[in-house]
């Protein structure tokens, strides 16, 4: 597995033990228990995530440096901002933008089949492994509504995620007394995120998720999406009250337009 990239990360982070967790599309994710700023005597055994965006050999060096720096900075900024606003995100620890490194607190845990608890893995687990019907029961409905609610709250603060897929939604159990079917969603990976108040950008955000659901979880995608949108309205109402409701309708109306605009859509139905 891409050993020279890991070696590069290790060279940027000397004397820090790294454990590789996953190789995403644009970043490697490591865990470590070392805090970057605390002196040795005050280190605890808390787990941190180090997200490293390696330089991509296929990109022109100038383009590559620009993209790495821009995405790392905007991800860190947005995560920090969301943390202040009280939206559940991994807590930011440190950033090194030119090298593409972000430290943050660990979220998520392992599922029963040993996979990371992303929404995608969890839904696949329910659809393939678990008892029939569990992919569409009330527990699933609750979690997908929660997902929608988180997105709604994000959009109410005029922040768009830019890359909503089921891989970019982690499930965690913040309280120790929560059982196996009880999860709270956390949105991660804000590398393509931006600030925008336009209904258009928010609608595209929802559309990207809708398409991701359709392509990754084709059997129940309609149900899933309906639950997400239900939660989306809830999130708006919670943050903005009546004004939130208005903004929500505006975005959803725009979503219809975005759907119609997709390329080579069948004209029937």
């Amino acid at each position, binding site marked *: 597995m*891409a050993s020279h990239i890991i070696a590069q990360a290790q060279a940027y982070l000397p004397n820090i033990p790294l454990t590789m967790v996953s190789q995403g*599309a644009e970043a490697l994710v490591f865990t470590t228990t070392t805090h970057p700023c605390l002196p040795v005597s005050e280190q605890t055994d808390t787990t941190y995530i180090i997200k490293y965006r390696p330089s991509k050999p296929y990109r022109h060096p100038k383009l590559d440096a620009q993209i790495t720096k821009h995405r790392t900075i905007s991800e860190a900024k947005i995560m920090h901002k969301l943390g202040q606003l009280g939206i559940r995100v991994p807590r930011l620890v440190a950033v090194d933008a030119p090298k593409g490194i972000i430290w943050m607190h660990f979220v998520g845990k392992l599922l029963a089949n040993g996979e990371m608890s992303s929404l995608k893995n969890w839904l696949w687990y329910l659809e393939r492994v678990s008892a029939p019907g569990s992919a569409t029961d009330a527990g699933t409905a609750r979690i997908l509504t929660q997902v929608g609610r988180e997105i709604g709250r994000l959009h109410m603060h005029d922040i768009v995620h*830019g890359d909503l*897929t089921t891989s970019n939604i982690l499930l965690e159990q913040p309280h120790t007394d929560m059982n196996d079917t009880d999860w709270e969603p956390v949105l991660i990976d804000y590398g393509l995120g931006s600030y925008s108040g336009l209904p258009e950008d928010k609608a595209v955000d929802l559309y990207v998720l809708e*398409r991701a659901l*359709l392509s*990754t979880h084709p059997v129940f995608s309609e149900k899933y999406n309906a639950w997400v949108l239900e939660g989306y309205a809830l999130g708006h109402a919670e943050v903005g009250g009546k004004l939130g409701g208005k903004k929500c309708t505006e975005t959803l109306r725009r979503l219809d337009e975005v759907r119609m*605009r997709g390329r*080579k859509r069948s004209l029937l139905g």
Partner: protein
Amino acid sequence: MINLDKHIKPSRDYYLALGLEGSANKLGIGIIKHPKGELTATNRAEVLSNVRDTYISPPGEGFLPRDTARHHRNWVVRVLKDALAVAGLVGRDLDCICFTQGPGMGAPLQAVVIAARTIAQLWDVPLVGVNHCVGHIEMGREITGAQNPVVLYVSGGNTQVIAYSKNHYRIFGETLDIAIGNCLDRFARTLKIPNDPFPGYNIEQMAKRGKNFVELPYTVKGMDLSMSGILAFIDSLAGDMFAGNKNKLLVAADGSSVTPEDLCFSLQECLYAMLVEITERAMAHVQLQQVLIVGGVGSNERLQQMMAQMVQDRNGSVFATDERFCIDNGIMIAHAGLLAYRMGQTNELWDTVCSQKFRTDEVYVNWRDD
């Protein structure tokens, strides 16, 4: 296990299909032969003929639907005779006649489907309508032997990242406005470079001489991308360059001025980096290790090289075909159509209407069961 041999002719242990493709400016007719049984590495499809004629418009112009349709009408009989002669067959030997049912330009599609209907009635052979994109994917899989790849389909009219799931080719990412080939073609028109053999090829040759990288907008939106803004941006840069207007973007780091070659180089670097990135996103999302590049732009060596670099870091493999199978051709329509025919699909005459809007994910892929 799927039985592909329910519709075989009693006296035979093979199938023959003819495919007609004319959804854009290429008119292609090909004949393919499938042996009985499942297609495997040892039991492969055989290309009997693959004839193509391309309508080439003058520099600075695109191909208009009306002129392209006229080209197809004028050439279809000659190309057809050629294809049969190369294969050494007569029309009545065929099991089915496959044609592109969409997506594509309306007028050229119409011109070719009329030819298909005519010969089907002349020789009394059933018709099979084929989705152009599925044709590309199936041909790419057959030629390269890729089992279950993430497919990057890049051509003049389409830009999609596709993966198979539950009997459909699902679209994970695609362009939100214009296709990549369209973007390159239109920039070639701005630069007034020849359309022969095709504009993308000439841009590639110019880009090889470019050195200075001009920063262009980089517009990846999740697994989707948008290219119309980049085109407008680089078009206006080229406009400034030709008019001699001052523009600080047109001065390279070493003080020299930016050339058309540099613009071609920058455009390719930027667009292909976006394509490779969305492909990588799809690979990570669906956890597949193989990439297959199909479509006309897929014959670009720089794109293949960049893709190979990306895939190497993921320990995967990349599959690409050469221009015979990358660029629109009749063989791919014959191949995909024959697969559908072997599963029992035939189109009655009333059901052979073409559509410009025929999405990849609408096709029910019943010849795969994984």
